[in-house]
Structure formats: structure tokens, C-alpha cells
């Protein structure tokens, strides 16, 4: 069995039996949803439907309904796209990279973080598709034999790289997530009492029975998928950054974009995970599994990636001056002091200053503070993309074509709508899917469970009272409580 140092904080608080872990996770699936769930779900659905309405109007009328003009061809659409892809980086990072690094704390959050990732990538993928205007010819981005002569898509174009990167990322994340879900669906199937639920979870669990050979394969497949997904995570946002970096627009033509974008993506992704987890653990009473230590670990990731992002901002600024290229220099002076100064300084405040507060242990262990910062970070990261995209193109080489971008209500409606849709998906997930990798958590119970670490419990099959009754007289364990 895997042994863990005694001074490490336990990952599962209190005493849990294997059965209690199952109960805790299945409670929300088997019980009635609380009224709050219906209220929040309805709000999200209404906002989402409004977004769908705006999208349909856009498709019927044309992308002229956005605030784009001939100078600013990319604005909120691509900002939202990059923002959502960035958010979609945390889940696979948590389940893949942390699996390779044998970080056991990932087990409490990987399932829901990965669900979050998949839904965020759905939202991201929507924007380039509707940006095409004629969405019904979206299949033209694929290299298909066609009647237009030997006309192929351009494999030299970063936009096509993006098509491959995003679709690979989405489908591989989905598979990785689902393979982990199968055994947990089997648990729910075997507990289900209602025939419909039994049938549904029976279908979803693919007839999983938990044989030793299957688990042997399961572990290898998880490991290899993690190994494949790890470079994939880094490649996706690198390729998204190529959309800008391979162009010759001052402010975009930057070699540090790939690592800078990846760090920014992890930064915003973890912030979104924090926002969701902090509410979810409370609402679903999972405080024993997702607790302060998990929040602290994630805050450290936020702090590190936030510092990388901050360094990148300053490097960019320095190089624009040091390069001696006046257009490059102007692009950055314009960002900080031009008509979009407020966006630039919002980005700087939210992304550079706020993560530095995490150096204070008190602050990074404070749940309320974390929640506020996680939202601040996501606002900041939206502004980052807006600053990079809009302020770089709104003043081009020809001052007579300088312009400003003003979002129309369709721009706003679609953006807000995707947030609504994202939450629709996430609420459905929390209601019908096991939000915690319940069977995986059982594997760390004996090594990282609090009651096992301090020697109070000896068996994962019985509650503490039952164990004490069984071994009465054996009471030389004093309760050394920490924090």
C-alpha cells in the first residue's frame, strides 16, 4: 500500500468507510434535487436560451449584427473563444498532468474539473463556428474531397491547426473523462432502485463489472491517456496563440505567446475550478473531500501561473521598447494610455496583482477570499484577451482607418448566453453524474484519510464507533488534531 508522510494534511477529513464515500457522492443523484437547484438551473437555462436566440438571429442576419468593422475584424467573438478555451485547460491539466506527477489531491476535483473543461470547450468551439457566418458550410474546414477542383484546406494556416487542435482536445478529453466515469456509473447502476435509472445507468456503464484484468487495463489506459493528454493540453493553447503570433500585427507578432497563453489558460482554468468547486462542495456537502488543503493547492497553482503571466506582460512591454520597432512600441503605449487604457489596467490589476496576494498563507486558505479572487482572475483574463485582440487592431498602420469597437446587444447576448449554457450543462452534470471520482477516492482512503493517518481507524468497512466496540480497551490513541 502507498504510504504517506504523517505531516501531510489528510485528503479525506474525518472517518469515512468505503460505503460512506459511495453514499456521499450518490446522494445528490438518488435524492430529490433541492429547490435551489431548480431555481439556478432555470436561470441558467433562460440566459442560455436567450444566447441561442441571439445566435439564431446572427445566423439569419449575418455577422454585421456584431459590432465589428473593417478595421476591427476580430473582437468579442475571438475574445470569448480564447477565454473559454483557456478556462477549458484546467480539467485535463488536473487529471492528466497531476496524474503523471502522482498528485493524489487531484482525485477529489478531477471529475468535475474535467466536466467543466468539456463544457467550456463546447462554448469555445461555438464562436469560430458562428463567426463563419454561414455555419452550414462549416465542414469546409475539413480536408474533404470536393467538387471545387483539387481545393484543399491550407495546412500552413494556424487557423486550420486550431481546428485540429481544438477538436482533438475536445474528443480526447471527452474519452478520458468517460473512461473514468464508467466504473462510477456501474456503482450507481448497482444501487439504482427505479427501473428507468437502472436502465439508463446500465447503458452508461457499458456493463462494467470490475474484474481484475479490466482494472489492470483501466490503470494503463488512464496512464497512457494522461501521457497523451499532457502535451495535448500544452499544444492546444500554444496553437491558439499561433493564431495571433504568426501574424504580422504589432502586439500579436510575439514569440513568447505560446508559453504565455498556456500559463494564462491554466491560470484562468484553475480560477474557474475554484469558483465552481467552492460552491459545489458546500451545496453537495462534499466538504470532507474537497477542503481547505485542496483549495490551497489550487491557489498555489494560480499564484505560480499568475506570476508567469505577469512576467510575460512585463517582458512584452520591455521588448516592445527594446526592439526599437516604433510600431511595436506604439502598440503597447496605446494599450496602456490609449482609448482602451481601462481594459489594460483592469487586466494588469486582476492578473498581476491579485495572484500575488496568495503568498499569504492566511489568504490562500481563506475560502471567501479565494472565491472573490477566482472571479477577479476570470474577469482579468477576459480583459487580457480583449486587450490583445482589440487594442492591437483598432489602430493600424493607416490613421484614417483607426476605429473603436462597440459591442452590440447581440455581442453581449451571445457572450452572456454561453455562460448560461455552460451552467446548464454543469447543473445537469451535478444532478446526474458522479461529481467525484468516487471509486478512485477509495484507493487513497487508507493512505490519506484523516482517521487512518492518526491511527483511529483500522478498517474501511466500519464506522469508528463499531471499530471501537470491536476493540474495546485499545484506547491509547490520543486525538492529535491539526489546524
Amino acid at each position, binding site marked *: 500500500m502507498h504510504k504517506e508522510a504523517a505531516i501531510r494534511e489528510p485528503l479525506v477529513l474525518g472517518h469515512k*468507510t468505503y460505503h460512506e464515500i459511495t453514499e456521499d457522492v450518490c446522494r445528490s443523484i438518488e435524492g430529490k434535487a433541492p429547490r435551489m437547484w431548480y431555481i439556478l438551473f432555470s436561470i441558467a437555462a433562460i440566459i442560455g436560451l436567450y444566447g441561442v436566440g441571439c445566435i439564431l438571429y446572427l445566423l439569419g442576419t449575418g455577422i454585421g449584427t456584431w459590432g465589428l468593422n473593417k478595421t476591427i475584424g476580430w473582437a468579442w467573438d475571438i475574445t470569448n473563444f480564447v477565454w473559454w478555451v483557456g478556462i477549458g485547460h484546467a480539467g485535463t491539466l488536473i487529471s492528466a498532468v497531476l496524474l503523471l506527477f502522482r498528485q493524489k489531491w487531484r482525485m477529489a476535483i478531477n471529475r468535475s474539473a474535467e466536466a467543466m473543461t468539456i463544457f467550456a470547450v463546447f462554448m469555445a468551439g461555438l464562436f469560430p463556428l458562428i463567426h463563419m457566418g454561414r455555419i452550414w458550410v462549416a465542414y469546409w474546414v475539413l480536408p474533404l474531397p470536393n467538387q471545387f477542383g483539387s*481545393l484543399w484546406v*491550407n495546412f500552413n494556416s494556424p487557423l486550420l491547426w486550431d481546428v485540429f487542435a481544438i477538436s482533438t482536445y475536445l474528443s480526447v478529453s471527452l*474519452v478520458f473523462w468517460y473512461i473514468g466515469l464508467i466504473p462510477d456509473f456501474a*456503482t450507481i447502476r448497482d444501487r439504482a432502485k427505479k427501473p428507468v435509472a437502472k436502465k439508463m445507468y446500465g447503458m*452508461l*456503464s457499458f456493463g462494467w463489472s*470490475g474484474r481484475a484484468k479490466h*482494472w489492470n487495463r483501466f490503470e494503463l489506459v488512464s496512464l497512457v491517456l494522461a501521457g497523451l493528454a499532457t502535451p495535448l493540453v500544452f499544444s492546444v493553447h500554444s496553437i491558439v496563440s499561433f493564431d495571433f503570433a504568426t501574424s504580422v500585427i504589432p502586439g500579436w507578432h510575439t514569440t513568447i505567446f505560446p508559453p504565455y497563453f498556456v500559463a494564462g489558460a491554466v491560470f484562468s482554468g484553475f480560477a474557474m475550478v475554484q469558483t465552481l468547486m467552492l460552491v459545489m462542495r458546500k451545496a453537495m456537502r462534499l466538504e470532507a473531500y474537497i477542503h481547505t488543503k485542496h483549495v490551497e493547492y489550487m491557489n498555489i497553482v494560480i499564484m505560480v501561473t499568475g506570476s508567469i503571466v505577469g512576467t510575460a506582460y512585463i517582458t512584452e512591454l520591455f521588448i516592445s521598447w527594446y526592439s526599437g520597432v516604433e510600431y511595436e512600441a506604439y502598440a503597447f503605449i496605446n494599450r496602456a494610455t490609449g482609448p482602451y487604457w481601462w481594459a489594460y489596467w483592469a487586466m494588469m490589476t486582476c492578473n498581476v496583482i491579485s495572484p500575488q496576494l496568495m503568498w499569504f498563507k492566511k489568504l490562500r486558505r481563506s475560502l471567501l477570499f479565494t472565491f472573490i479572487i477566482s472571479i477577479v482572475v476570470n474577469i482579468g483574463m477576459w480583459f487580457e484577451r480583449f486587450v490583445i485582440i482589440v487594442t492591437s487592431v483598432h489602430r493600424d498602420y493607416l490613421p484614417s482607418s483607426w476605429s473603436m469597437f462597440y459591442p452590440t446587444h447581440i455581442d453581449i447576448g451571445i457572450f452572456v448566453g454561453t455562460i448560461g449554457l455552460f451552467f446548464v450543462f454543469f447543473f445537469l452534470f451535478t444532478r446526474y453524474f458522479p461529481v467525484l471520482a468516487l471509486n478512485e477516492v477509495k484507493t487513497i482512503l487508507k493512505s490519506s484519510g484523516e482517521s487512518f493517518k492518526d491511527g483511529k481507524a483500522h478498517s*474501511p468497512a466500519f464506522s469508528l464507533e463499531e471499530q471501537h466496540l470491536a476493540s474495546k480497551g485499545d484506547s491509547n490513541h490520543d486525538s492529535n488534531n491539526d489546524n
Partner: protein
Amino acid sequence: MADTVFYAMYDDDDVLKDGAKKLVSKGVKVSEVFSPFPIHGIDPIIGVKNTRLGIMAFLYGLTGLMVATIGMNFFMIQDWPMNIGGKPSFSYLENFLAFVPISFEFTVLCAAHGMAITYLLRNKTIPGVKADNPDPRTTDDRFVMELRMSENSKFSADELEGLLKSTGIVELDQKELN
């Protein structure tokens, strides 16, 4: 051929593992273990060989890389060479750098999906298949060891039962299979 199967149930994965070790050392063949999560270290004890799915993933990845290379060479160099910014496409090698991202993505795509599909097929875990775990609790908090009389012909049923009972089981079930 009728066969008697013992299902020995445990409530602790480590107890099962120790039990399996003990039984195997006495020459008993454990034909299967059902558990809610992977029991680390059980495979060599009960003689489950390591999976070769990793090799398959590599082969699928190689296939993906080859398809991507052949495809892009055909599209961009042979069939319709594009002259972009005065940088003509005469050879694959000269244009190779632009093809790296998609070669990589396609390799990962094929390796991941190929392996996932093989995994599901080999496990026979496909939508619509019925589960065959002996007890619904084996996906919750119980661990079941399966012994078959046909594979343990040198023991009598009573001997096997006695051996199992000495390993800390919580329940013992016996079934006749046809």
C-alpha cells in the same frame, strides 16, 4: 459441464490480497477478483498478466503520424502546391515546420481513440452489455474472489470452503454454473 463456483466476499481490499496470497501459496487457483476500484498488487498474485494496450497505443499513434504525413504531403505538395508569400511548396521537408502541429495533433488523436476503442472492445464493455458482477455490492464497498471447482480439482469443496473461511471473509456464496 456443471461447475461449482465459490464467491468469497471481503470488506477490505488488503484482507483480500493477503487471503489471495495465502490461497495461491497453498496451490489454489483464484480465477477472478471483482472490486470497486483497482487493488494494487493483486495482478501478479492471481496471475493476471499485464495488459499490452500500451503497445497498441503506440502503433495507433504511429499510424496517425503516417496518415497525417502522407495526407499533408499529398494535399500541400503534390496535388495543389500553394505559393504563399513567395515561399513555394516544392518539397515536404522544406515545408515540414508548418506541418508539425497537425502531425502532432493527429498522432495524439489516433493513439487516444484507437486505444480507447480497443480497451472497450477487449473488456467487452460496450453500451448495452449486461454487467456480470456476482453481487451489486462489488461496485460499492465489497471485494469478491471467485474460485472454480473445475480449476481446483485437487481440493474438495469442503477443503476449499475451509481455506476460504480462514482468510477473513465476510460472506461465502456457492453457485452451480452450467
